[in-house]
C-alpha cells in the first residue's frame, strides 16, 4: 500500500513580533497515521495546530516555511480559500468541548448548518447524515439531535463535537488536548472512539497533548516539542523504548507509574 | 509610555486647578456674585467684568466661580453619601446572601425600573425645591448603582478558592470583607464614581435648570443657564459660559475615570 502524505510541514517558523514561537519545525502525517505532538504549556504545540487551519491569532505570523495539506500550501492562503478547507479537509476538536456548540441552538440544527454550508444535500439527506454521524460516535442519535448543548454531559458533548468534526469526512482531524478536561475513564473512552473512527473513515489524526500517557496506546508517530522546537520525533515505538533526547527521557520519568513505585519522581526538567 | 504619563500630568494639573478654584472661589471672585446692579446689566466681556454681566448686572465670572462650589461641591457630597450608603450595603448583601440578599435585590430592582432622571425629578418634586432636597433625591437614585456594583464584585470573588482559604484560616467575615473584598471593590467603585460624577453634575445642573435645585439668587450653573435663556439672542455668552463650564468639568472627570481604570488594574502596574 502506498502511503499518501496528508500533511507535510517543513521549516515552519511562527513569530510574535520578533519572538520566535515556533522554530523551523518539520513533520509529516500520512493517511491512517495517528500523529501525536507532545509538549508542555508554552511549547508551541497549540500554535502549530492553529497554524495548520489558518486559525492563528492576528498578532502571530508564519514567517517562513510551508504547510502542505494534500499537496496545497496553506501558508498565506486567503481566509476565503482557507474556509473551504476547514470542516471538509481539516477539522478540529478542542479541550473546551463546551465551546464547540452554541447554547442557543440544538445540536441537530448545528450539524445541519454545517452540512448546508458545505454540501448540496436535501433536507432529508442532511438529517439522515447528521443522525448517522451521531450514531457513529455512539450517542443516542435522536435524543442528542434534539438536545441543546447544556443538556449533555462533558463526555457526550465531546462525542458530539467529534461527530461534528467528522461529519464531512475530513482527511485530517486535529485534536487539541481533547481529553484534558475530561475524567480519566471518559477520556479513555473518547480516545478509543477516535481510534475506531479513524479506522472507519481512513483519515489521519493530529493529536496534541501534554500527557505522554495519552499517546501510549493509539499513536504511531510522536514528536516531542519544547520551547518552539521539536526535540525528538519518530515512530512511537522508537521514541517510547529508546528515547534519545534528555528532555524526552525526563518527561517519561516524571510520570508516576502504577507498577514501579519509587520514593520520589524524577524531576530533572 | 510618554503618551500615558503626559495624559496623567494633564489630568492631575487640571484637577489641581479645579480643586484650587473650588476651595478659593469666594476669595478669587472679584465681585459679590449676588449683588444686583441694574445699570451694569448685560455688559459684554471686558477687563472689569472678565466674563461680562448678566441680566441683573451681576458679575458672571464671580457667579461661575461660586457656582462651581455649589454644582461641583454638591456632586461630591452626593457621591460621598452614595458611596457611604451603597458600598457597605452591597458588600453585606452579596457576602451574606440568602434572605437579606433577596430583599435587597427587590429594592434595587424597584429603583432600577425607572430612569434616573424620572425618579430624581419625582423625588425632588415630592420633597420640594432646594439644594438640600436635590442632594437627597439624587443620593436616593445613585446609591443603588454602587450597592449593585459592590454586590456583583463580592459575588464573583466569593466563589474563588482564596475566600475558602481565608475561611479555613479562621478569618472572620468582617476580616474577609476588609482584607479580600474591599480592595476588589475599591478599584471598580472608584472608576464608576469618577465616571458618575460627570453624570451627577449634569443631573444637578439639569434639575436646577428646571427649577428644582438651587433657588435664586444663589449662583448655580444649571440655574444660570435657565436665567440666561431669555437673553440668548442678545447675550449668548450668558448661556455659553456655564454650558462650557459644565462640559469641561464633566470631560475632566471622564478622563480621570479612564485613567483610574488603567491604574486600578494591578496587572498594568508592573510589566
Amino acid at each position, binding site marked *: 500500500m502506498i502511503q499518501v502524505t496528508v500533511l507535510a510541514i517543513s521549516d515552519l517558523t511562527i513569530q510574535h513580533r520578533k519572538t520566535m514561537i515556533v522554530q523551523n519545525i518539520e513533520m509529516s502525517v500520512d493517511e491512517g497515521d495517528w500523529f501525536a505532538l507532545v509538549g*508542555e*504549556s508554552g511549547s508551541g504545540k497549540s500554535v502549530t495546530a492553529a497554524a495548520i487551519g489558518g486559525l492563528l491569532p492576528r498578532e502571530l505570523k508564519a514567517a517562513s516555511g510551508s504547510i502542505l495539506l494534500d499537496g496545497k500550501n496553506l501558508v498565506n492562503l486567503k481566509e476565503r480559500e482557507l474556509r473551504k478547507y476547514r470542516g471538509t479537509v481539516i477539522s478540529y476538536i478542542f479541550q473546551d468541548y463546551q465551546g464547540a456548540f452554541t447554547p442557543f441552538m440544538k445540536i441537530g440544527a448545528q450539524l445541519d448548518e454545517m452540512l448546508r454550508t458545505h454540501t448540496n444535500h436535501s433536507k432529508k439527506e442532511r438529517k439522515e447524515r447528521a443522525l448517522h454521524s451521531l450514531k457513529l460516535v455512539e450517542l443516542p442519535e435522536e435524543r442528542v439531535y434534539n438536545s441543546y448543548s447544556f443538556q449533555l454531559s*462533558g463526555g457526550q458533548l465531546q462525542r458530539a463535537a467529534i461527530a461534528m468534526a467528522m461529519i464531512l469526512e475530513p482527511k485530517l482531524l486535529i485534536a487539541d488536548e481533547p481529553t484534558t478536561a475530561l*475524567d*480519566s*475513564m*471518559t*477520556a*479513555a473512552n473518547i480516545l478509543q472512539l477516535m481510534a475506531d473512527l479513524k479506522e472507519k473513515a481512513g483519515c489521519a489524526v493530529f493529536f496534541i497533548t*501534554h*500527557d*505522554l*500517557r495519552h499517546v*501510549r*496506546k493509539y499513536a504511531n508517530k510522536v514528536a516531542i516539542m519544547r520551547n518552539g522546537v521539536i526535540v525528538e520525533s519518530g515512530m512511537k515505538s522508537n521514541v517510547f523504548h529508546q528515547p534519545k533526547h534528555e528532555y524526552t527521557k*525526563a*518527561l517519561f*520519568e*516524571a*510520570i*508516576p*507509574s*502504577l*507498577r514501579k*513505585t519509587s*520514593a*520520589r*519522581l*524524577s*524531576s530533572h*526538567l | 509610555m510618554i503618551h500615558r504619563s503626559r495624559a496623567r500630568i494633564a489630568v492631575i494639573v487640571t484637577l489641581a486647578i479645579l480643586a484650587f478654584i473650588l476651595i478659593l472661589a469666594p476669595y478669587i471672585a472679584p465681585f459679590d456674585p449676588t449683588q444686583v446692579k441694574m445699570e451694569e446689566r448685560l455688559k459684554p466681556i471686558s477687563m472689569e467684568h472678565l466674563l461680562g454681566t448678566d441680566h441683573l448686572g451681576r458679575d458672571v465670572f464671580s457667579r461661575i466661580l461660586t457656582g462651581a462650589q455649589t454644582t461641583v461641591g454638591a456632586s461630591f457630597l452626593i457621591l460621598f453619601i452614595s458611596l457611604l450608603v451603597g458600598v457597605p450595603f452591597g458588600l453585606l448583601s452579596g457576602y451574606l446572601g440568602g434572605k437579606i440578599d433577596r430583599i435587597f435585590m427587590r429594592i434595587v430592582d424597584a429603583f432600577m425600573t425607572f430612569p434616573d432622571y424620572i425618579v430624581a425629578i419625582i423625588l425632588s418634586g415630592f420633597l420640594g425645591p432646594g439644594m438640600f432636597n436635590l442632594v437627597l433625591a439624587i443620593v436616593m437614585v445613585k446609591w443603588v448603582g454602587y450597592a449593585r456594583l459592590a454586590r456583583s464584585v463580592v459575588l464573583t470573588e466569593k466563589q*474563588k*478558592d*482564596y475566600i*475558602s*482559604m*481565608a*475561611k*479555613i*484560616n*479562621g*478569618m472572620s467575615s468582617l*476580616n474577609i470583607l476588609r*482584607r*479580600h473584598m474591599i*480592595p*476588589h471593590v475599591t*478599584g471598580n467603585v472608584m472608576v464608576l464614581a469618577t465616571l458618575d460624577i460627570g453624570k451627577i453634575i449634569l443631573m444637578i445642573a439639569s434639575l436646577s435648570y428646571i427649577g428644582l435645585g438651587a433657588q435664586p439668587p444663589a449662583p448655580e450653573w444649571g440655574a444660570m443657564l435657565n436665567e440666561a435663556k431669555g437673553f440668548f439672542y442678545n447675550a449668548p455668552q450668558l448661556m455659553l459660559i456655564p454650558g462650557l463650564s459644565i462640559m469641561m468639568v464633566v470631560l475632566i472627570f471622564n478622563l480621570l475615570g479612564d485613567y483610574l481604570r488603567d491604574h486600578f488594574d*494591578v*496587572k498594568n*502596574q*508592573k*510589566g
Partner: protein
Amino acid sequence: MRVVGQEILTVKNLSKEYVCGHKAVDQVSLTVNKGECLGIVGESGSGKSTLARCLLALEKIDEGEILLKEKSLYNANKKSLHPVRSEIQAVFQNPSASLNPKLKIIDSLMEPLDFQRKIQPSFLMDIRNQRTKMAERLFEMVGLPSKYLSYYPHELSGGQKQRVIIARAISIEPALIILDEPTASLDVSIQAKILNLLKDLQEDLGISYLFISHDLAAVNFMSQRIIVMKQGQIVDQCSKHDLFSDRRHPYTKDLLHVFEA
C-alpha cells in the same frame, strides 16, 4: 497497627445532600492516621470534592460526624471551630484562584499566621514575631527564592503559585492538609516536582495528608492507603500493596485498566 490517639481525622457515616435531594456524599466513613497519606480516587461527580469541603467546614453536613483529633467539627459553633481551624489546611486545584490577585504574595502567604497569632509552629519558633523572616523561611522550605515575596500572583507561574499555597498550608504546622487535585492544572514536569515536594514536607514535618485526585497513578505514588469513590459512596478501599489484588472492586479494576493502558 491502629493505636487510639493516632487518628488525626475520623469520619463516621457522613452524608451531604444537595437541594435536589441527590446525595453528593453518601454514608462515607474513613480515618486518617498521624503522618499518613490517605488517597481518594474518583471521577468528577464522585463526591470527592464535596467531601473535602465538608471536612474543611466550608459546607454543612446533613448526617454523620467528623472528628479532628477527637474533637467534633460540627457540634462546634463558630468559636469552638477556631482551635480546630488551626489543625487543618488545604491546597486546591487552581493555584490562581487560591491567591487574591490584589494582594502581594507575602500577604497571602502569611494570612494564617497573621490571623491566628496564638499558633507557634516548631520550625518558626526561633524567629517568631519577625514576619519577613518567617516568610523567607517558609519560602526556603518549598524551594522558592525570597524575592517573590514582594511580587503579585500574576507575576508567578502556576507551579510557583502552587508552592506558595503549599507554604501557606504548612505555615501553621497543621495536623492535616487536604490536597484536592493539587497538580491537576500543572504541566507534567511541574506535577512531579510538586508531588516530590509534598512528600518531602510530609516526611520532615509529620503532617497527615488527604490526597484527592482523579489520577490513580498520582494517588498511588503519594498514598499508603487508597479509597475509591463513585457517586458519593466508597466502593473500594485498600492499602497500596493490594491495589492489583483480584479482590478489588470491578470499578477499581476499570480504573487500573485505564491507567495501565
